[in-house]
């Protein structure tokens, strides 16, 4: 096991106690960023109503907002700043988390690379925002930024010359800053959309209580410690001490402590390194991607609808069979999670003929899974026999195996067709079924838990058959370290089924 991943999981598990898995903020960092973005947008619109774009007016209006209407403008200004800072915190944690969990290579390279570009955009938006106040910090940021850019051999005259004298900065300049500060967030939003474009059912809004809690925290902070300006910018002076926003302006002191070139080397180097991560840390072997078997496919589109990464496209049928469409797998996007196999109506273990589904993982063929299930079920003894279906990315369910407990692990729990539950309980071969997967809201393949729960609840195709008693099924969402959680769930299930009379569902017809 990866020690970094385990340490990180332990950290995240600390938050499971107060928040529960469903609300754990670590599992919703991307959605929290979206939420904070909208807080910034709404507060920014309010500020812009009062903001006047002039050298004197810019500072004056921000001061008026802060001091003349502290209950509204002041709070909005503070929310604007703190939500922007929150975006940086959530964004960096989001990136670090995905890096630690190895969620950057293969089909995920696109999200990773666009995410790295988004970091630049977020920083440009935030730093540009600080110029608009036109106070001493804005002055420092403006001068330092231009001095930093002047290191690049791009400009015929140094940009910093624009800030030599007090009269150099015009109303038109502030106007331009204002225009950029409206345009760039739109570009940022566009990139955020591109970043999540390849995700099916991307989570762009966090659970309501998490959003409310985050907003309340920012609101209280805004009231206790409102964002304030420095003195008005004066280019004949040199700002001596500055209350820097370290989230956005942290690298700025390095321009003077090292040199502009060294800071370019640092940020450029980090950016290039991050962009190269998907290829530098590429796994040696590539898991085989899903394959379509048209003989067993009726073009029902379930695999297309359930694929978490939109790796399946529906195209006109080519094999002459009387169906309109056929699925086609894009190997570059396929995660080899098997969720499509779990969605396929042909993934029916009751079939007497050779079991081949409409879509299969070549290294995890369904007939092999059925044979393994049969073998496991045949070995069960005792009064409360349980078949456990688990996930390779979650707690290792094979550790639960005993005379009374059999276990089968799949690449993702979403690969489990609900009919396998039926299959295990049929003819009383098992008394109960435990279905275990990743931590709730933290599925390695995003939608495996969600689809499994909906299929078991008979809300999503393929639905669990009505004849299967739900009392004999237990679900448990637990990470690799959550041994206690899985054992508790198993014990609860076994205690329950031991009180129930053993029952058989009878004969199964060939489908």
């Amino acid at each position, binding site marked *: 096991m990866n020690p970094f991943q385990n340490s990180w999981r332990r950290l995240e598990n600390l*938050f499971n*106690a*107060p*928040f*529960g898995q469903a609300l754990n*903020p670590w599992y919703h960092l991307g959605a929290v960023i979206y939420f904070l973005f909208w807080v910034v947008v709404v507060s920014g619109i309010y500020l812009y109503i009062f903001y006047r774009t002039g050298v004197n007016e810019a500072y004056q209006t921000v001061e008026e907002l802060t001091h003349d209407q502290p209950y509204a403008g002041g709070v909005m200004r503070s929310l604007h*700043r*703190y939500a922007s*800072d*929150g975006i940086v*915190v959530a964004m960096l944690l989001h990136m670090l988390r995905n890096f630690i969990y190895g969620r950057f290579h293969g089909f995920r390279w696109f999200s990773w690379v666009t995410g790295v570009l988004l970091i630049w955009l977020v920083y440009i938006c935030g730093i540009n925002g600080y110029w608009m106040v036109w106070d001493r910090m804005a002055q*420092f940021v403006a001068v330092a930024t231009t*001095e930093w850019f*002047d290191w690049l051999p791009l400009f*015929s*005259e*140094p940009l*910093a*010359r624009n800030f*030599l*004298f007090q009269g150099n900065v015009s109303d038109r300049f502030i106007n331009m800053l204002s225009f950029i500060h409206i345009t760039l967030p739109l570009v940022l939003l566009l990139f955020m959309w591109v970043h999540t474009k390849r995700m099916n059912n991307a989570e762009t809004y966090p659970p309501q209580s998490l959003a409310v*809690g*985050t907003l*309340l*925290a*920012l609101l*209280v*902070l805004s009231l*206790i*410690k409102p*964002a*304030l300006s420095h003195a008005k910018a004066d*280019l*004949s*002076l*040199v*700002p*001596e*001490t*500055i*209350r*820097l*926003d*370290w*989230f956005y302006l942290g690298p*700025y*002191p390095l321009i*003077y402590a090292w040199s502009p070139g060294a800071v370019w080397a640092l940020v450029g180097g980090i950016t290039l390194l991050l962009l190269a991560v998907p290829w530098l840390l590429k796994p040696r072997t590539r898991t085989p991607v899903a394959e379509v078997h048209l003989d067993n496919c009726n073009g029902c589109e379930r695999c297309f609808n359930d694929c978490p990464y939109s790796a399946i496209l529906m195209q006109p049928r080519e094999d002459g069979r009387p169906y309109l469409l056929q699925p086609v797998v894009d190997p570059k996007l396929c995660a080899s999670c098997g969720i499509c196999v779990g969605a396929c109506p042909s993934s029916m273990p009751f079939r007497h003929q050779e079991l081949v589904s409409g879509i299969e993982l070549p290294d995890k063929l369904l007939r092999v899974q059925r044979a393994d299930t049969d073998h496991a079920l045949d070995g069960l003894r005792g009064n409360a026999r349980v078949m456990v279906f688990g996930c390779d990315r979650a707690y290792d369910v094979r550790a639960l195996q005993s005379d009374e407990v059999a276990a089968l692990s799949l690449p993702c729990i979403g690969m489990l067709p609900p009919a396998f539950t039926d299959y295990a309980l049929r003819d009383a071969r098992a008394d109960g079924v435990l279905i275990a997967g990743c931590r709730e809201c933290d599925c390695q393949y995003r939608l495996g838990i969600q689809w499994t729960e909906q299929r078991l609840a008979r809300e999503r195709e393929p639905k669990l058959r009505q004849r299967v008693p739900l009392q004999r099924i237990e679900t448990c969402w637990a990470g690799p370290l959550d041994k206690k959680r899985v054992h508790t769930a198993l014990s609860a299930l076994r205690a329950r089924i031991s009180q129930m009379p053993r029952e058989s569902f009878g004969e199964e017809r060939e489908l």
Partner: protein
Amino acid sequence: MKPINYLGQGVAYALFAVVLGYFSSSPEYEHIPPGQALVKLSFSHAAQRKGACRERTDEELAKLKPNMRVRNDCPRERADVVVELEMDGKQIYHVVLPPPGLAHDGAASIYRRLQVPAGMHRFVARLKDKMDGDFDFMHEENVDLVAGRALVIDFKADVPGAPGFMFKK
């Protein structure tokens, strides 16, 4: 959810707010130490051309296309700009600025910030913009530099009557 859970959530949100609240304006960054001031030497100046212009002969002009028939033939390449700055008799900066551009005919530019102690200082700035000889421009001035202020030393060759350095606080 139990009250202890809400308490735990409150602690987590408070931690988030404290981190945001603190690092959004703390710790203070000291851009320049107390008692220090800045000198910003900055200008953009096109030096004199390296060679002298000569007049084209009528034959030479006739060979040129009509729109290219200019009597004076001046070499494009310009000389380096050499700048020196002295403070209290000690040289604190010296630079040779080659003309930019593929034909080396652009205006040389500089922006240089120098941190110096506050107080009364005598500054001498010199500039040479031709191939040979001594400095063409020189300006000296006593300046009382207040801590936290910037002295800008600019150079303009096209100011009628008073081309040369300008010291501005």
